[in-house]
């Protein structure tokens, strides 16, 4: 049964990833819409509403179901030996009211949202950490339960952006079983998504447009995928940086060295470890600076408990290049108990 499940999962993953690869590697075709900054934000809002709808089970599950288009599907590749697909409003609502829930229950933590235009709408992917926090007063400690990736297809309906399909893949570590096709980490995808040249979008030196913010957010959101899944010997990771970029720590300069560093980190086609949060961005005369929190979660596999590997934050300098926004410098600083604020 395990073999069947693995085969199914691999088949679904390959299908989805090949689909992503096909769109990410190319410039938008004539049938691919240009996404505005507001489109990105509305899709992001859809993705974030998902957690609330699923965890609260609001409207008897229909708040969750109504995030999907009429004929949309959710596939849990971890459900049963060969995965399970839910289609239609009633079945999706039943899914949302069948699990742990409550008006104040918070379980599905979604981050690293990457969005790209695609024929018919958009595609995307997100990390999800599924936490047990607040166990109804039974004294159990809060903990990371499991996690993984959602692969999404979005469609714009008269009611707004909706999921056309969403598939969950549980995090799996280790070296890739097979070289996975590139996901949404192709650098061209980032600049192509903007729909115009970078130069035309910045109005004044020292200011950032909404589109600049979106592109920098997307750059940072792509970082964990390039590192954790590393589909191409670190090339996607290295291409997130300028050619003269510096990463600390360890101090690493140049794309080839960055690619080598990424390849030495644990990775796998479905591996999720780096959860980024609280990304703030500020304009500078030369571009932008930003910072975000990192929590690296070792998600348990085969029934093993999950644990937090480390936490801390990144401090970044971003530069706008002909390829789009890139990391000029990126510095990781581990979290440590601080002195009292002065």
């Amino acid at each position, binding site marked *: 049964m395990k073999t069947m499940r693995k085969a199914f999962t691999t088949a679904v993953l390959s299908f989805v990833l090949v689909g992503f690869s096909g769109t990410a590697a190319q410039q938008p075709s004539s049938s691919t819409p240009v996404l505005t900054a507001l489109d990105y934000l509305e899709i992001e809002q859809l993705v974030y509403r998902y957690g609330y709808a699923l965890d609260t*089970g*609001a409207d008897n599950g229909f708040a969750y179901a109504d995030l999907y288009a009429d004929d949309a599907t959710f596939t849990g590749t971890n459900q049963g030996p060969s995965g399970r697909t839910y289609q239609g409003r009633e079945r999706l609502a039943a899914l949302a009211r069948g699990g742990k829930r409550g008006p104040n229950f918070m379980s599905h933590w979604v981050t690293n949202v990457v969005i790209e235009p695609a024929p018919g709408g958009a595609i995307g992917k997100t990390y999800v950490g599924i936490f047990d926090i607040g166990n109804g007063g039974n004294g159990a400690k809060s903990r990371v339960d499991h996690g993984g990736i959602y692969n999404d297809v979005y469609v714009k309906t008269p009611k707004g952006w909706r999921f056309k399909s969403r598939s969950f893949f549980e995090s799996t570590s280790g070296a890739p079983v097979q070289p996975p096709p590139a996901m949404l980490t192709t650098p061209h995808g980032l600049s192509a998504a903007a729909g115009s040249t970078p130069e035309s979008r910045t109005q004044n030196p020292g200011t950032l447009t909404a589109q600049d913010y979106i592109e920098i957010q997307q750059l940072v959101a792509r970082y964990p995928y390039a590192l954790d899944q590393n589909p191409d010997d670190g090339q996607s990771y290295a291409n997130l940086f300028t050619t003269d970029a510096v990463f600390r720590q360890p101090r690493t300069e140049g794309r080839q060295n960055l690619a080598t560093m990424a390849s030495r980190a644990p990775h796998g086609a479905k591996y999720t470890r780096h959860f980024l949060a609280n990304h703030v961005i500020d304009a500078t005369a030369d571009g932008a600076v930003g910072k975000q929190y990192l929590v690296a979660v070792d998600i348990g596999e085969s029934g093993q408990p999950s644990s937090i590997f480390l936490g801390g934050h990144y401090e970044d300098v971003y530069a706008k290049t002909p390829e789009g926004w890139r990391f000029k410098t990126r510095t990781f600083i581990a979290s440590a108990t601080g002195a009292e604020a002065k």
Partner: protein
Amino acid sequence: MTSGRPLTIALGIAILAMLALTVLPAQQREPVTARASANTSPLTDVDYIEIQQLQRKSAWALDSGDNYGYAFADLFTPDGTFVGTSEGGRTLQGRDQLATLARGGTRGHTVQRHFTMNHVVKPSAAGATGRAYVVVADVGVVGQKNKVNQGGYYDDEYQKTPQGWRFKRRTYYESKVDVWPASAPRPGQ
């Protein structure tokens, strides 16, 4: 079948359903949406981004304790309020009271505890409202294993001021599960 009775029953059911919706807690009946209602103005892309940035900065200000807590306080309107609903609850209002929340204890630029995600925003008559999940993780504490400490969500009201978007009110609710089906595994299982 042309009798009025079925219609009366149907109307009765409809009225009961409407009443039920009226008394349900807001978070149960109202999925957070980004759509503007008739008496609200839509938010622009810049509004969304500024509110996102405000919300994200709150975690940095709270954990760093910058400016003796005033970096956090200055993310609120002058009459802004923070409500903590756990442990009996407490309400802090005004710059000085809010600053006290973000100082003392363990703070600093290398303290990362409040991880916020799932930030949804929608327009409201007074500006905007939103929610964000927050997980409080203890990481990098000398002598302790990293762990998830607690978590829940923030319920926010935002107001546009001459200085930009600010919190008018922020309420923290601790996560609590109400329904745990027998089929769902318990921690440790």
